[in-house]
């Protein structure tokens, strides 16, 4: 692995004349229009939120494992959060809500879409920047106040939003039911503002992918990461306005006395759920598609083999993009919605597992007969496949509506969603961050600490989330502050304690990643242009690439997965290299189809 990680590319290029960048600091790094800087800004912001969200999870795990015992350091918190150090139900509910909100909207989604959408799209398609660089900058600087507003909830009277990240009305709409007034309003406002950021980002991505591909980069030469980000951007553009609309209605209910969701005045609580999940289920795929795409790139690279079934991978992404709109009702099987709809949604939900299965089989096909290099990103990408399989299979249980009657709103769901979002998305994010870190910062992350972090994470992650399946099968409800109040859950308390201790270890392990991330920034080994011997266009550039990316517009001759090609003596063949030997070299094709 060491040779791969540090070896220099056999294909060398003239990077063109040295690019003189004389922009002042603030234009270069703060209010930058460079997609790479914006990507890194999103990275720093979303990793911060990942840490905050994780910290809130530790608060919850403390209370669940050791209910009624003072939280270590809890006495330092305000008396509205803890009483003699004991976490109060209001703080627990607010931790539940903000953990979900931070992780979904301010960590995983920006990590996948904001960071890698920004960083990878122009580099991988051979473009100098996004189609609308200033709107791109505005997208980041809209996300920042949204994040600050969400955080501000913790510091106002009544505390932060506490109605769950799904904010089911009327609990979220009526402050008398939660004791939270400003916090709920901030939650709505923040998501409305963040929605603007997402919309600005997504149409930028869509335009860039459609219009700015380098000559020869036709649709079926696009890396799967770009396909996934493209379809994701379409989902974002269509789904986020639904959330924004719903949040505006909820905000009106909270502030100016409308009653869209309050039945006391003719409103309908289920309306919120329909709107939220009409956004929310495409959102689930927003949170996993880019992870799938980037994992595909990394797995092909690690296996040194073309991706298996490229076309069916693309079709599966597109299929998910369409089917994802027709399954929201499976979140509402027990909501009181017409039971006939339940049957319909059960079938559509079961069918959406097909494209996910296709992708899994294709990943297996990719490593089959490969020549597998276990670099750190590859380890994470393989863990992604392995854990996503568990998350995908556990989804079948709740898709079957009769069994969902039993496990709906139990820890089985919590286990499932964490296998998809942590085991799936977050492992892919770890893979992607370690993979593209050298390109972003010009330094390698420590492979040793990368491996330590990977193995400890894999172990503690499974110790944390796997037993949650058992809790759920035992009937353990979600979002309860103290499970020992129920006799049937008291006997499962040792499982809760085991999960909590594993979760603390899992959290501590992430500090290794943080230290590696920050330490490598200063002390990491200098990164070569192409440390992973990857075929993508970004690896033809210096690490980090200059402002404007490509000195000369690259020409693309083939897809990104030509590893171990018989046309080359090496086991990779970059997209922009004419066929070695000249004979039979394909002619460059113009952009577009």
């Amino acid at each position, binding site marked *: 692995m060491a040779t791969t990680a540090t070896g220099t590319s056999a294909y060398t290029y003239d990077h063109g004349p040295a690019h003189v960048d004389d922009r002042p600091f603030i234009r270069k790094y703060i209010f930058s229009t460079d997609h790479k800087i914006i990507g890194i800004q999103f990275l720093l912001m979303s990793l911060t939120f990942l840490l905050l969200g994780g910290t809130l999870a530790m608060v919850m795990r403390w209370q669940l494992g050791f209910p009624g015992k003072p939280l270590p350091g809890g006495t330092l918190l305000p008396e509205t959060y803890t009483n003699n150090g004991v976490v109060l139900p209001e703080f627990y509910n607010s931790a539940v809500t903000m953990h979900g909100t931070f992780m979904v909207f301010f960590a995983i989604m920006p990590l996948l879409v904001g960071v890698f959408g920004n960083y990878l799209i122009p580099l991988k398609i051979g473009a100098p920047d996004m189609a609308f660089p200033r709107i791109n900058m505005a997208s980041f600087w809209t996300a920042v106040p949204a994040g600050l507003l969400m955080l501000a909830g913790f510091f106002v009277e009544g505390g932060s939003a506490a109605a769950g990240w799904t904010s089911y009305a009327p*609990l979220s709409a009526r402050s008398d*039911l939660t004791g939270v007034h400003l916090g709920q309003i901030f939650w709505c406002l923040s998501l409305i503002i963040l929605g603007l950021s997402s919309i600005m980002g997504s149409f930028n991505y869509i335009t860039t992918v459609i219009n700015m591909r380098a000559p020869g980069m036709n649709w079926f030469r696009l890396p799967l990461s770009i396909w996934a980000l493209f379809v994701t951007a379409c989902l974002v553009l269509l789904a986020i306005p639904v959330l924004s609309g719903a949040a505006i209605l909820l905000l009106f209910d909270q502030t100016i006395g409308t009653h869209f969701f309050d039945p006391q005045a003719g409103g309908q609580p289920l309306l919120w759920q329909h709107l939220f999940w009409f956004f929310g289920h495409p959102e689930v795929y927003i949170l996993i598609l880019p992870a799938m795409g980037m994992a595909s790139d990394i797995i092909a690279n690690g296996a040194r083999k073309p991706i298996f079934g490229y076309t069916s991978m693309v079709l599966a992404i597109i299929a998910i993009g369409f089917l994802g709109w027709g399954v929201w009702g499976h979140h509402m099987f027990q909501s009181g919605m017409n039971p006939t709809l339940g049957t319909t949604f059960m079938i559509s939900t079961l069918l959406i597992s097909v494209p996910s299965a296709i992708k899994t089989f294709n990943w*297996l096909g990719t490593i089959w007969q490969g020549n597998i290099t276990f670099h750190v990103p590859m380890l994470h990408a393989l863990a992604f496949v392995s854990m996503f399989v568990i998350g995908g299979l556990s989804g079948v249980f709740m898709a079957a*509506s009769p069994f969902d009657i039993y496990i709906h709103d139990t820890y089985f769901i919590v286990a499932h969603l964490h296998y998809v979002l942590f085991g799936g998305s977050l492992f892919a994010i770890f893979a992607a961050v370690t993979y593209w870190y050298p390109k972003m910062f010009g330094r390698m992350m420590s492979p040793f600490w990368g491996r330590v972090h990977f193995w400890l994470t894999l172990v503690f992650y499974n110790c944390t989330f796997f037993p949650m399946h058992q809790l759920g099968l035992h009937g353990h409800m979600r979002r309860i502050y103290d499970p020992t109040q129920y006799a049937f859950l008291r006997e499962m308390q040792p499982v809760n304690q*085991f999960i909590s201790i594993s979760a603390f270890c899992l959290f501590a392990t992430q500090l290794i990643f943080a230290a590696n991330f920050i330490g490598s920034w200063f002390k990491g080994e200098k990164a070569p242009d192409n440390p992973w011997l990857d075929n993508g266009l970004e690896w033809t550039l210096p690490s980090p690439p200059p402002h404007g990316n490509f000195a000369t517009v690259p020409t693309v001759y083939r897809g990104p997965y030509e590893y171990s090609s018989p046309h080359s003596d090496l086991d990779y063949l970059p997209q922009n290299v004419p066929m070695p030997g000249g004979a039979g070299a394909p002619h460059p094709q113009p952009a577009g189809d």
Partner: protein
Amino acid sequence: MDKFLSWMLPPGASTFVGDIDWIYYLILAVTGVAFVLVEVALVVFLIRYRKRPGRKATYIHGSNRAEVIWTSVTAVVVVIIGLLSAPAWNKIKGREGVPPNAMPIGIEAKQFEWNVTYPGPDGKLGTKDDFTIRGQLHVPVDRPTVAMLTSQDAIHSFFVPSFRIKQDAVPGMHIRVWFQPTKVGEYELGCAELCGLGHYRMRAIVTVHTQADYDRWVAEQGHSVAQR
């Protein structure tokens, strides 16, 4: 320890147990096989095809036959699971599923209590002998009970794990939920939908009586019922 890692469902006490649990075990078997196949293949491939010097990966781009096979097999399996699940869903939640001889009760959820209204000796709701009790659900064994479920404030969810029944209680809606206990005893009823500060304590006891005991209990309540 085996209890903690068991894949078995806890014992149940209603007629739904049979309808629901076998679907679970069916899916467990199907997904279990898929899980083992995929994970074993993954590990075997990782070991077998690990990097070795002087070797190149096989240069292939896929197989249409493999794609067709695994797409159609997966699709057929999930559709079969769906078709096998549908009858249980219609029986438990379908509008036509409620047995006509079910005993009617009213359940009004509020932060953070379950208030159960019983039909009294005449067996009819909405008559003078109705009475309401907080936090206690009493039902006769081997006889269907249908609850008219509603909520005063937030959304709650009526969940009796032993009965394998769960239904959200939504303000402004009256949702019928039915079940038929099969064993005399005490069970726990919990709230499964976050409803505020006291969500975790929104608990009640379900007592399943023999019909004779139940009738006796109803007669006892008649006049001495406490206001909530």
